[in-house]
């Protein structure tokens, strides 16, 4: 086998490996929230941390799997028929807004549950909107 052939085979092999790594990385799955370890907190503590020190709360919670125990203020289906649970805080009209990835969720208003999900942050309007925001959790599961 000539040197040129060897180089061609080696280059082709390296290219194939690079492409394979690229395809695997591109298709890597989402995090498994259901079995992930969590940062435990309460609805009031979670909301207050975002209000008191937004920068610190972002570092601590955003994109992390958080578990929150609280009373259900309301539950309904969103525009894509996913279950949404609003956990009460002691601030009027402020909730921990939990959108479920779990398909069958057996919950109702007034129940106390523990929810785990990824924290997206605190979505607030400006003063003109006149509406306090919620802390948002997504891809949620009822914590067993």
């Amino acid at each position, binding site marked *: 086998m000539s040197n040129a052939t060897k180089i061609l085979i080696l280059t082709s092999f390296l290219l194939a490996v690079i492409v394979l790594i690229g395809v695997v*990385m*591109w*298709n*890597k*799955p*989402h*995090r498994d929230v259901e079995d992930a370890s969590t940062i435990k907190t309460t609805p009031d503590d979670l909301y207050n941390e975002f209000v008191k020190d937004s920068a610190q709360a*972002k570092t601590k919670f*955003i*994109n992390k799997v958080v578990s929150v125990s609280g009373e259900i203020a309301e539950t*309904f289906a*969103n*525009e*894509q028929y*996913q279950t*949404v649970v609003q956990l009460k805080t002691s601030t009027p009209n402020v*909730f921990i*807004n939990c*959108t479920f990835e779990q398909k069958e969720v057996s919950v109702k208003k007034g129940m106390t549950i523990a929810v785990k999900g990824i924290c*997206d*942050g605190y*979505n*607030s*309007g*400006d003063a*003109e*909107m*006149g*509406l306090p*925001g*919620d802390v*948002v959790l*997504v*891809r949620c599961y009822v914590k067993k």
Partner: protein
Amino acid sequence: MRSPLTQQPIRKKYFTKNGLISFFSKAQLENIKADNNQVLSTIDVGTGGIQFSVLINGFHFPKATMEEHFNEDYMESSKYPKATFKGKITDLSKVDFTKDGVYKVNVSGDLTMHGITKPNFSTDGTITIKDGKISANSKFMIELKDYNIKIPKVVASNIAEKIEITVVCSYPNKM
């Protein structure tokens, strides 16, 4: 039949914290769709004022890597965490909030994303009144370059330069 809105004094402002905004990119190599189901929105039926606020990292993609690139490379969501729209229904007189129907409207206002505000952004949409409940829908295009969103050349064939935005918001709550 009288709608529920006619049986009680009309409240001015309605809101949702779980509206839907989706975007769709149709490019040479692949189509990409992402959804955000935690849209905060208010509508004032007295003035026609309409506002939206959405967390950028709340857009969820079919693939984890797409989500990472979107947040870290294109939208820089830690630097610019929200997109907002603050505007008005310019032809509010077309809408009878006391009568069921689908009303075509125009909305105009300030659209802010990636740290850039486009004033007088205008688009068409519909206001639907059904059994006294209000919902708003719209579909429009935005150009990434208008908001200084840069796509590296190496993935240019994966992401469209013009993105289709779809808004679906029902307003079940009164303020």
